[in-house]
């Protein structure tokens, strides 16, 4: 079931309650988020909805899926994210490199790097050191930079391989943190280290 209602809290509540009572529905989608509403309003909407939905069924959020908003929504009970974050990065020649498992108090570091930057022309290092994706195990920043420069398809192929892989690793860490009952601390450390 898809829960609509825009920014209207009451409407959201009514919609969620009605859909929540339909036993045949296997899960729910909160649609219409990240359309300009504030983060506080979004939180209010999600809380309003999760308060009346059966908690044993999965809840999907459709959003840009930026790491910070993902963590925010996970804390509110969202289970599944439909997101274009990896693809959006790939399209502009960026690679995700945010700290996957930062410690509390870690200094902020860039969350993505722009491989179009000419400073990478002869950079022999992998896109993200320590990343086990095919791209980081195989290619260098210099080669990715060359592929982007020459408008070669392998640029998007390689970046997408990395960004999707990296994003999935992010969710692995999220799940561990939730399972080990330390999600709040994980989120706090992550936000501190995210630039």
């Amino acid at each position, binding site marked *: 079931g898809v829960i609509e209602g825009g920014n209207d809290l009451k409407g959201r509540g009514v919609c969620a309650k009605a859909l929540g009572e339909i036993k045949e529905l296997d899960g729910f989608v909160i649609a219409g988020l990240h359309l300009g509403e504030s983060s506080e309003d979004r939180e209010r909407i999600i809380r309003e909805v999760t308060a009346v939905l059966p908690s044993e069924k999965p809840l999907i959020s459709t959003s840009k899926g930026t790491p910070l908003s993902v963590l925010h929504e996970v804390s509110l009970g969202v289970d599944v994210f439909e997101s274009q974050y990896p693809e959006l990065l790939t399209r502009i020649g960026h690679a995700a490199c945010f700290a996957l498992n930062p410690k509390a108090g870690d200094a902020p570091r860039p969350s993505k790097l722009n491989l179009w930057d000419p400073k990478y022309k002869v950079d022999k290092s992998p896109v993200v050191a320590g990343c086990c994706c095919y791209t980081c195990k195989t290619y260098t920043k210099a*080669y990715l930079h060359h592929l982007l420069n*020459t408008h070669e*398809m392998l640029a998007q192929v390689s970046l997408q391989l990395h960004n999707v892989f990296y994003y999935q690793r992010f969710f692995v860490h999220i799940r561990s943190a939730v399972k080990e009952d330390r999600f709040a601390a994980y989120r706090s450390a992550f936000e501190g280290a995210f630039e």
Partner: protein
Amino acid sequence: WHALLISFEVTAMWNGARASRLILPHGLVHTPVFMPVGTQGTIKGLTSEQIKACGCRLILSNTYHLGNRPGGEVVDEMGGIHKFMRWDGNLLTDSGGFQMVSLLKLARITEEGVLFQSPVNGSEMLLTPERSMEIQNQIGSDIMMALDDVCPSTSEDMKRFEEATYRTLRWIDRCIKAHKKPHIQNLYGIVQGGLDPKLREISLKEMIQRNLPGYAIGGLAGGEDKALFWRVVKQCCDHLPKNKPRYLMGVGYTLDLVVCSALGCDQFDCVFPARTARFGTAMTKQGLVKLKKREYRGDKTLLDPSTQVGRSYTRGYLHELATREATGSMLLTMHNIEFLQNFMKELRESIRNGSFPDFVRDFMKTEHPDGNYPKWAVNALKAAGIDL
């Protein structure tokens, strides 16, 4: 680990056709071999792993384009082309000569070299034999091509052909002199002469005298009359040394591969398979399958049994992807490249076990079920000893 510079051993023959083992610094290559083209240090959209999985052991890259972007110095700094693009097979670099034809409007040819204006950013590059050797040395390819003076085969300017033939010879000597790594990189000379047997004879005689590790037949595959094309190929194959590889440049349609293998060629290259894939066309034994066409919509049949991609995806699915999604390009590129590798494998096997004429006849029948064989191919094969 001792890298062998080059070794070429003909292990089987059927008349002029040879099946051979070509060993280069990055390993063994069975010939006749088709070399896919990765112009800018990548075969459009494919990873090195995928290229290898398609059966390739020898691919091509382009000196002019790599010299432009990222630049010979960058490739050198990054440890050479193999390290840069993470390809551990063999690589051949074209000297930049072909761009004289393909970018003719942007090129000015003199005795010194070719002055190119980049189609990308208008920047100028003077490609001399020395500069071409320098860039190729920086790139670190296993086979380097000499810079030759190429006149489009469809030209009617006999004086230009003559000039190009002799200049190519003067340039090969400059190339040999400028080549700084003859102990780890093989320099092939290119036979020119247009479609004129006399000029070709001169070029052949002089090139062979330079005693190079391999020779290419250049200046063809430019839209010239096929009847003249095959005769030039035959002349060159008949005169080039038997114990050295012959590389026919720019040839990649299956019919041409079959005929020219029969005439005695060992190496081929062409942009056709990868390019046609990006236009949504798959190569099969029955001919080209243009997947963009509406007739393939909802087609549940698998593409083609001879390749991994062909066995995994339906025509209907590929129809949806073709030209719309990058994945479509990649899958069809993989298919076409593997198709050709498998095709050449079969061709080589047939030379080895003596059934080459049957291979040729079966191929012709499959491609032309109505028996309407192209006349030039019939004549060429006859000259090679195969009667259709």
